[in-house]
């Protein structure tokens, strides 16, 4: 190893250290911005080093320079534009697209490396082939799977599970073809079999995500994020670059942790979500408002008075709030209540929203200060001391039935909303949530149901508080 390449490897390790430090600083909202800057400093160091390395080696053609720079400029421009213009409600789609291109780029690195080696006269070392194939397979699955996930989130593709008779057989078949072709590539190196691997992996990505319902998307995005990281790490093996290996492993770990957290919060195993292919789309089953025994309905005025004269209110926002894009309305109501001296906090279930942490971002955008955003374990003991719990568009995560064995959601971690002194639920209808079972919270004598769209309901509540108790 020459002095120069020794130095560049050391600088790559420095860049990777910046990534670790940057992620570490994300442990509090106060330091997270500095963390993001640290990670990016690491990225700038890594890219500058690579430029120096390329220039020093001196084998790059002028076409190579143009391809590299123009490609980076175009990609950077696309990234900048989408990052600046994306709505916060559309973050899951954007992250999914970023997963897609990351996985795609990683797969391309391995494909090129294989073409180059296959073009050479000498054979391929076995270990190189294994990591190359892993990179190609994981990267391709991530690429097509993430595009489908983004399409489902955007509503271009139906968010309902798409299944057809024998779809599981097709999945198995694609897996078998891909792995068989991969085995063939290892046994007898050659390009045609690699193309089969790529096509099978791309098709598998599609058939893997199509049957997964909209409600499971937080798990899918996290899982694909982990895949992308792993693919990038494999690309690091292929080209022998530590920065890629370390960065890819960090992202893989991050995606892995989030996948586990989301699956636990939904009471589903990861395998169950992937092969299951059930789960619902965005729309709850419609039912007549007020249907069901023992349900108390409430009007805006009464609800407003309860809220205005409470000492402590906990707002429980759910998927329905995000779907109705009512985060600004809820923040306005909370501000109004706070100005009257009511103590207002938000109880955020891990799967509220469409991706990990999504609800927090939506509320932060609506100017809700982050100390008011409480995680499930932190807020649950507070419900007993709460005068009014205002549930907006959250269903299964508030269902006390989860505490009993023998129901579809048994064992699922829930918010202890039923412990509050009184409960107001804003909901369009008595429709079931994702689990498809009755929510026992709604028939609790302490609960009043306010049947309305979240956005309208919150605006009405705000104006009712203003006019009634101004």
């Amino acid at each position, binding site marked *: 190893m020459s002095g120069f390449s020794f130095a560049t490897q050391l600088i790559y390790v420095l860049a990777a250290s910046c990534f670790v430090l940057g992620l570490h600083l994300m442990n509090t909202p106060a330091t997270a911005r500095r963390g993001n800057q640290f990670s990016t400093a690491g990225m700038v160091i890594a890219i500058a080093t690579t430029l120096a390395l390329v220039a020093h080696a001196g084998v790059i053609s002028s076409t190579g320079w143009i391809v590299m720079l123009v490609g980076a400029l175009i990609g950077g*421009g696309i990234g900048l534009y989408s*990052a600046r213009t994306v709505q916060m409600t559309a973050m899951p789609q954007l992250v999914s697209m970023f997963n897609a291109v*990351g996985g795609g780029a990683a797969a391309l690195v391995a494909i090129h490396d294989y073409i*180059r080696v296959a073009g050479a006269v000498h054979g391929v070392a076995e270990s190189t082939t294994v990591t190359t194939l892993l990179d190609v397979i994981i990267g391709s699955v991530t690429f097509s799977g993430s595009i489908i996930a983004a399409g489902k989130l955007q509503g271009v593709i139906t968010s309902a599970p798409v299944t057809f008779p024998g779809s599981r057989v097709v999945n198995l078949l694609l897996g078998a073809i891909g792995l068989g072709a991969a085995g063939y590539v290892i046994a007898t190196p050659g390009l045609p079999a690699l193309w089969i691997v790529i096509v099978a992996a791309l098709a598998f990505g599609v058939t893997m995500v199509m049957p997964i319902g909209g409600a499971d998307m937080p798990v899918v995005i996290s899982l694909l994020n982990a895949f992308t*990281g792993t693919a990038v790490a494999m690309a690091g093996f292929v080209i022998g670059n530590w920065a890629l290996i370390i960065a890819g492993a960090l992202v893989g770990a991050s995606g892995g942790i989030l996948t586990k957290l989301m699956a636990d919060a939904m009471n589903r195993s990861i395998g169950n979500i992937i092969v299951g292919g059930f789960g619902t789309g965005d729309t709850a089953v419609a039912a007549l408002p007020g249907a069901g025994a023992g349900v108390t309905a409430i009007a805006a005025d009464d609800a407003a008075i309860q809220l205005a004269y409470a000492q402590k209110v906990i707002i429980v926002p759910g998927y329905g709030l995000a779907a109705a894009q009512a985060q600004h309305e809820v923040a306005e109501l909370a501000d109004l209540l706070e100005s009257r001296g009511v103590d207002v906090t938000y109880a955020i279930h891990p799967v509220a929203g469409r991706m990990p*942490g999504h609800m927090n*971002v939506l509320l932060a955008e609506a100017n809700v200060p982050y100390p008011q955003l409480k995680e499930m374990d932190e807020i649950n003991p507070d419900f007993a001391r709460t005068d009014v719990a205002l549930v907006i568009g959250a269903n299964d995560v508030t269902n006390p039935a989860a505490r009993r064995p023998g129901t579809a959601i048994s064992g699922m971690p829930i918010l202890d909303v039923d412990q509050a002194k009184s409960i107001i639920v804003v909901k369009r209808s008595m429709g079931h949530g994702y689990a498809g079972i009755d929510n026992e919270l709604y028939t609790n004598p302490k609960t009043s149901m306010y049947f309305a769209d979240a956005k309208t309901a919150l605006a009405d509540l705000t104006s009712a508080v203003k006019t009634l108790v101004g």
Partner: protein
Amino acid sequence: MSTALLTDLTIFVLSLWVGFEVISKVPATLHTPLMSAANSIHGIVLVGAMLIAATTNSWIGYVIAFVAAVFASANVVGGYVVTGRMLKMFRRRPAAPAVTAPAAPAATATAALSRDGQSA
């Protein structure tokens, strides 16, 4: 199994553990910015795209290098910018008054030294 592969594997496994350790401390509040920051970090694959452009001399190599460079740099720039945009929205108090006048000058100095002291 070659030494290089063994080294790479060691680095990979240890980095996974470091990742689990560091990321399990990120609060749920920040999970979305965490994911977009991860998007930016896996844009490191741009290094791979650059090395392809540097070593290839075939048209297919250039095409692959170009597409990979577009993809990876979209990750790097987009991930960084959107993470910054989100983190900027996380405020302790909306439009808080800048000065809250701490009791003693000593306290001010301590607060200035540790900017995140208030988060304790």
